C-alpha cells in the first residue's frame, strides 16, 4: 500500500495531481481510493487530498490516510506542509513546492507566518524542496507546478515513467500535454 497526502491552498490545483495518481493505479491494475475536498475549503482555505494505492492483491477500504500513515506528503505550500506533518509515517518524505501563501490571520497581522517553517519541516522529515512554480514557468506555464511536483514524486513510487506520462496525457487538455510532460521531466530530474 502506498499512501500519499496532497496538501495546499484551495485553488492551487491539488485535484489534478490526485486524478493523475488515480489513473496510474488503474493502469497498474491496482485498487485505489482518492478522497477529495469540494465545497467551502476550496475558497482559499487549507485543502487535503488523500490517495491510497494498494499493493498487488490488496484491497483499499478506507478512503483516508491516517495520521502517521503517509509514505509521502506532497505539499504545494510551506505552511501547509508543516500543518500536515502528523500525517507522515516515520521515515517518510515530503515533496515541497517551496512557496509561501499567507493565510488571512497573517495577512491582517493578527498572527505570524512561522519564520522557521522550513527548518521545522526539515528537522522532522526528509524534504525535497523545489521551486515548482519557477520550473513550471520556465516550461511555459506556472499552472504546471503540480506536474513538476509529480515528477519529483515519481522517483519515490514504484511506477515507471511511462505510466506517469500516459496518465498526464490522459488528464490534461491536449494543447497542454507537451508542456506538462516537459514539466514532469524537469521534476523527475530535480528529485
Amino acid at each position, binding site marked *: 500500500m502506498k499512501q500519499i497526502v496532497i496538501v495546499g*491552498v484551495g485553488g492551487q490545483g491539488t485535484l489534478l495531481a490526485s486524478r493523475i495518481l488515480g489513473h496510474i493505479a488503474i493502469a497498474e491494475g491496482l485498487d485505489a481510493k482518492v478522497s477529495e475536498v469540494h465545497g467551502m475549503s476550496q475558497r482559499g482555505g487549507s485543502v487535503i487530498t488523500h490517495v491510497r494505492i494498494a499493493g498487488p492483491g490488496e484491497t483499499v477500504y478506507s478512503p483516508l490516510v491516517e495520521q502517521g500513515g503517509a509514505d509521502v506528503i506532497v505539499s504545494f505550500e510551506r505552511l501547509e506542509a508543516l500543518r500536515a506533518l502528523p500525517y507522515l509515517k516515520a521515515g517518510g518524505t515530503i515533496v515541497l513546492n517551496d512557496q509561501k501563501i499567507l493565510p488571512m490571520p497573517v495577512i491582517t497581522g493578527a498572527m505570524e507566518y512561522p519564520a522557521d517553517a522550513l527548518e521545522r519541516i526539515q528537522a522532522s522529515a526528509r524534504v525535497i524542496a523545489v521551486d515548482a512554480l519557477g520550473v513550471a514557468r520556465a516550461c511555459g506555464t506556472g499552472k504546471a507546478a503540480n506536474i513538476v511536483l509529480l515528477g519529483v514524486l515519481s522517483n519515490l513510487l514504484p511506477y515507471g515513467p511511462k505510466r506517469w506520462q500516459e496518465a498526464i496525457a490522459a488528464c490534461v487538455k491536449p494543447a497542454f500535454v507537451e508542456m506538462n510532460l516537459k514539466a514532469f521531466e524537469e521534476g523527475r530530474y530535480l528529485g
Partner: protein
Amino acid sequence: MKELMLGNEAIARGAYEAGVRVVSSYPGTPSTEITENAVRYDGIYAEWAPNEKVALEVSLGAAIAGGRALCCMKHVGLNVAADPLFTAAYTGINGGLLIVVADDPGMHSSQNEQDSRFYARSAHVPMLEPSDSQECKDMVARAFAISEEYDTPVLMRVTTRIAHARSLVELSEPTEIPLRDYVKDMRKYVMMPGNARGRHVVVEAREKRLAEDCSAFSDLNRVEMNSAKLGVVCSGAAYDYVREALPEASVLKLGMVYPLPKKLIEDFASRVEQLIVVEDMEPFFEDAIKSWGIPCCGKEKTGLQGELFVRKLSTLFAGAPDAGPQETPGVPPRPPVLCPGCPHRAVFYVLHKLRAHVSADIGCYTLGALKPLDAVDSVVCMGASIGIAHGAEKARGSSFARETVAVIGDSTLMHSGITGLVNAAYNESTGTIIVVDNSTTGMTGHQENPLTGKNLRGDIAPRVNLVKLCEAIGIRRVRVVDPFELKELETVLKEEMAADELSVVIARRPCALLKSVRIEAPVTVVADACVKCFACMRLGCPAIIKTPGGPVIDTALCTGCGLCQKVCPTGAIKKGGERA
C-alpha cells in the same frame, strides 16, 4: 472497463444504466456532482430546480407519470423537501423514484451535522447506504427495483467520504426501461383525508413486508464472519474504517439501513461474544438493536460528534494507544476567504463601516462574518436572513430596523428567500434587504439558477426579473447598485436603511471566478504616497499583505478590481502592477 469515479459520479452513472429519465435537484455540497454528471448522459433530462422541495415534486411527478426519476440534495435540503417526501410515501410511485441525500459528518461544508436516516424512519421510506463508488452505482439499480416492487420512493444516504471519494467502478451498459402506463388513480394520488387514511394502511403493510423481506436481501446486507469474539454492525464509510481498524472482527455490513433486517441482526448477535455498533452521527442502529433487548455498545464510546476514522476505532475497540488529535503547534489556521476581486467584499466592507446588524444567509457571503470584515450577526439556513431581520424588527421596533439589513444571494433568494420577501412586504417590514446578485451559485461551484439566464445544460433560459419581482410583491423602494461603486453603495444603503418602509438593494456584479469576468492588470502600492494607515487591510483581501514597510500587493493573486484604490485615502494604490 473500470474507472476511478467519485461516489457522486458513480450514482449518476447508475442512474444512466438504470434507465432514469428525469433528474431534478438543487446543488449542495456534498451532493452537487451527481446532477452535474447526470446531465451529460443521453436519455436523461436533468435540471436545477430552485429548491429541494420543488426538485422532489418534479421527480415525483415524473415517477407518477411512469418514468424513473432521481432527486439529489444535501442533508439540510431534505428538510426543505420533507413535505413532499412524507406524502410521497403515501401515494407511492409508478415509475421508480430515488432520492439521494448526502450527509456531512464533521461539517466540511455545512451548518449542522444532522443524520438523514431518521427521515427514512419517520416517513416510512426504505433507505440504502453504499460504502464505495461501485456500490453507489449498483445500489441505484437496486433502489429502483425496490421502489417499483414495493411501490415506494426509496432514499439513498451517502456521506462526504463516499460522495467525494474516488474508487474503482465497473461500468455496464444502460438498460432500456420503458415508460409505465399512466393511469389516473384518484384514491392513490389525491391525498385528501379519506384517501390518505386508506393509504396509511398500505404504508404500514408495505413497511412490515420490507422489514421481513430485507433479512434475505443478501446483496445489500452481508455478514463477513471472522473471529466470534467481536461482532460489528456498520454501514457506509464506517464499514471501510472497521475493516481496517478491526481486521479480526466479524462484520454485519448493512446496505439497507431502513428498515433494519431484525432477523439477520439477531442471528449475527447470537454468533458473537460481544456486539458493537459503529455508525457516523446518531445511534440509529444502536437504539433499534437495544430496543430489541440485544446488548451492544456504540455511541458511549464513539461519541456523537465529528467523523469516525480508522485510528479512532482501533484505539477505542482494539486497545491501540491513543495518539490523540495531533496538530503541529504554532501553525496559523487558514480559513476559507472571499476571493480577490469578489464583489461581496464591498458590501460587507460598507456594512462593517455602518455598524449594521446583519442577518446573512447561506453562500460564499457567509464568509463576510470573518475578520477583518466581521460584518455578520447571524446565519441559520437557506433563505432565513429575511425572516430573521423581519422578526428582529417586530421584537425591537422600527428604530432597530433602521440599523438592520438582511443579506441574501441570488440563488438563495430563488431557493427560499422569496417567501421571506413576500412576508416582509405583506407584514409591513420597514427594513432593508440586500440581494448580493453575483449571477451564479458560488460556493457549490458555479451552478446556474433562475436569476442567471441559463439552465443546467448551459442553454439560454428565461431569467427572473428581480426588480419587477420586488415590485410585484409590493415593494416600492428597489435600487440596483454596482457594489464596486463603493461611495454610491454606501449612500444608497444609508438612504434605504433610514427609509421608513421596506427596501431592496440589489448589489449586482458577477462572481470574479466566472470565466466571462475579465481579470484586469494588478494594482501596486506607490511607497512614497502610502502613509501606512492600512485602511486597505480592512477589506480582507488575500492579495493585500501587511508588512512593516506598508501594505504590499501580491500581484499573482490581484485581479485589479480596484476596490483597494477606492478605500485608500492618499491615492497610493495605482493600476499597472506587473503580473508575477
